[in-house]
């Protein structure tokens, strides 16, 4: 009789606890969903632990990353990538930086460094590759490395859309490597619009616009607007580009800016 009562008490307790857990679940789920949505909005939780990552970083590193050592694994791989760069093993540099950026998609330095190695260092090495006698193939390889650098920066921007640094790097890549002034202008303008962007970005966006064929009037208006902001903006390059556009657009003499004092 006593044992039966004891069982009933245990059963009642378990039912109570189960009801409590389910009620708790009903309360906590919306809060958890809201927090998760906020994390996604702030671009936290950028790493998905799936088979793709497992294949990229190997089993041991994957287990380490799962155990909460993701940033540590990324740092070790970054050091390995640096060593590979010193040995000019460009394929290995690329693979290691892919792993590093996959593990730490919110670290701007990794994206920027990866793009720099590909578009600036590996591309030059490919162009001067003594083992490839055909120039056309060397140029092709060079352009492939430009594209890899661009891919790193675009992916980095997708993961960090609120940070200005990668927009600037992409603008530089378009300007220096592709000689694509319209795209460089686009990314410098996007960069300039972000909070925390350097003050020179808006000028650089205007400079690039001044190199775009057919957009001289737009560039002139923008440079003139910057010029009118005051002495601080009247820097030598701005004045040079403005003078160039005044000549190109045949601006009347009385509307031109004064010649800089020598």
């Amino acid at each position, binding site marked *: 009789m006593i044992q039966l009562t004891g069982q009933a008490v245990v059963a009642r*307790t*378990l039912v*109570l*606890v189960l009801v*409590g*857990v*389910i009620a*708790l*679940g*009903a309360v*906590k*789920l919306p*809060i*958890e969903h809201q*927090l*998760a949505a*906020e*994390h996604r909005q*702030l671009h*936290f*939780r950028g*790493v998905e632990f799936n088979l793709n990552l497992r294949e990229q970083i190997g089993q041991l590193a994957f287990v380490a990353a799962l155990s*909460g050592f*993701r*940033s540590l694994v990324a740092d070790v791989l970054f050091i390995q990538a640096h060593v590979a760069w010193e040995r000019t093993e460009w394929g290995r540099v690329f693979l290691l930086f892919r792993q590093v950026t996959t593990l*730490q998609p*919110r*670290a*701007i330095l990794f994206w920027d460094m990866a793009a720099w190695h590909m578009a600036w260092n590996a591309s030059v090495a490919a162009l001067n590759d003594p083992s490839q006698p055909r120039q056309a193939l060397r140029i092709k390889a060079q352009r492939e490395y430009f594209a890899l650098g661009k891919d790193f920066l675009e992916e980095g921007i997708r993961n960090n859309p609120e940070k200005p640094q990668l927009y600037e790097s992409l603008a530089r890549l378009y300007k220096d490597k592709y000689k694509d002034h319209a795209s460089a202008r686009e990314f410098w303008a996007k960069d300039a619009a972000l909070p925390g962007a350097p003050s020179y970005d808006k000028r650089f966006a205007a400079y690039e616009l001044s190199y775009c064929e057919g957009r001289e009037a737009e560039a002139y208006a923008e440079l003139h607007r910057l010029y009118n902001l005051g002495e601080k903006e009247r820097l030598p390059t701005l004045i040079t580009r403005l003078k160039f556009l005044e000549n190109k657009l045949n601006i009347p003499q009385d509307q031109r800016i004064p010649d800089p004092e020598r």
Partner: protein
Amino acid sequence: MFLAIVALIFPDLQAFNLVDDVVAGTAIPLALFLRTAALGIFYTTIYTMLAAVVFYGKEL
């Protein structure tokens, strides 16, 4: 169905995993930090109470 039950019963500890973003220099908004801390206190209190109910009177 199974995953829904798991989500209903177990706490989402991933909500507390902010260390990688802190390492990367990302600022955690104060409101988010306070809500996460409140969720932690909520989990601790409720699960401790449930554990107390289950283990009450047992010889441990």
